[in-house]
């Protein structure tokens, strides 16, 4: 993997890293991807029927599970910046 590839991924993942960090990562990835790539060989041993996904998602009823405002002050307390109970963020553009 090339440094440029890591740069694109880092942007998608919203992480700021130095070029040195990213070069090291690109280097480490070759070995890791070769290792995990073994699944492509393994999947040939999996019988068609056995590969069916047997799990299903669990969803709860869409109802309120706590009292209104129960956690509000504890959560606001941790905001890095706030105004009248509203979270303040930086401009987007």
């Amino acid at each position, binding site marked *: 993997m090339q440094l440029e590839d890591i740069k694109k991924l880092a942007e998608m993942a919203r*992480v700021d890293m130095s070029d040195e960090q990213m070069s090291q990562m690109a280097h*480490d990835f070759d070995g890791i991807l070769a290792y995990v790539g073994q*699944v492509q060989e*393994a999947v040939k*041993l999996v*019988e068609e029927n056995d590969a069916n*996904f047997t799990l299903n998602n*669990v969803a709860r009823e869409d109802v309120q599970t706590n009292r209104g405002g129960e956690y509000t002050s504890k959560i606001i307390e941790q905001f890095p910046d706030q105004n009248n109970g509203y979270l303040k963020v930086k401009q987007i553009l």
Partner: protein
Amino acid sequence: MIDLKNLTIQKAHEDMKSGVYTPTQLASAYLDVIKEKNADINAYVEVYDDVLEQAKIAESKFADGTATFMTGIPMALKDNMLRNGYIASAASNILKNYKSTYDAFVVKQLKDAGAIFLGRANMDDAAMGSSTETSAYGPTKNPLNTDYVPGGSSGGSVAAVAMDGALVALGSDTGGSIRQPAAFTNLVGFKPTYGAVSRSGIIAMASSLDQVGPIAKNVADAEILFNAINAHDPMDGTSASKELIGTIDKSPIKKKIGIPREFLKGDGIDADVLKNFDESCEKLKNAGYELVDVSLPLIKYSLSVYYIVQPAEVSSNLGRYDGMRYGLNVEAGKLFDVYAKSRGQGFGKEVLRRIILGTYILSHGYYDAYYNTAVKVREGIKKELANVFKDVDVIVTPTTPTPPFKFGAKSKDPLSMYMSDLFCVPANIAGIPAISVPSGLSDDGMPLGFQMMAPHFREDILFTIGKDFEKLV
């Protein structure tokens, strides 16, 4: 003086019930050890300020007759478990100032039982690592020999128990993070069936793999702690209901043990580990167990599957840490830069590696080749294990492919670090319970573990055979 070294939950319970000592005296004895040893070992990143107040609550339970086995038992919580009003940081810079707004289900269960939380235990950064060297609070040392790592990611939890700074501890296990460190510190480490213990209030790493479980000095203590946290919780959608558990086939133990010979022949498995493993099997045979070789052609791919599914889930789960609402917030002019700088500085090297790896694996061009393929192989592994369990009670392996290693031995080569969970990950991949029980010493005098895996929700088998095995070592 209370003999903490040989203390068990049952003994402590009887002692406190009959008034040999009080929960306050027991908790104080542990606090004294922590004061003496923690500066060197770094098992705890915080000792709670209300330990003696908790002990008073336990005392009232003994006084009014409502005490249960966990009442007054001093224990450590891994730093990824929420305790209302206290910091829970997952030993990560990004959460170093995060104060829990509620109790994790397991914390609430144990609080109701009157257990005493001594403090939060060190761990690898966001539970990613197998040596506790990646912690934002610095590494934890192995109390048995401080040149060695304690294993990870629950390294602080095991060190707390191994240095007699807690009677038991909770850890979390996504791919061996309870069992591998337990093996490295001569303790019992137990990962329950996926769904047996609620994940509500546990800082998520990889949600289809994470499970909380006990770390203890013997199997009976691990069982008691497990029983205290094993309950249905509607706040975790994957928490198993009573109805589901009722459908489990509880056929009696056949005393038959499966050995996956092919899996034990791979590269990087130490000769003294294999020798110790063969001796352990022989002991079980002499105790009346039947040993059979079992064929599991896919199991050796478990670690490859794991290092696809796990980083994929990590990259999604950790998307929530953006510096906006809590945790580390690095100032920048634009919103995007606040995200990128907070995340870049808040996550350690290993965490970043997995986020980027997961982002790659889930990206458009590679999703089928990696994630989708891994999911299919995962299903294949589950089915081949289920098939073998029709014939045997447990499948056994060494807990780790090598004995405990020294600081720095694997931290520069991620793949070699990942390999230390080779034998642990199949249980997470399949969601089955697994236990590591101490099995003797390596050539350099460090502890080794013997791992047993059982079918879903058959924890009882692991406790029964685990107790038998303990007597043989």
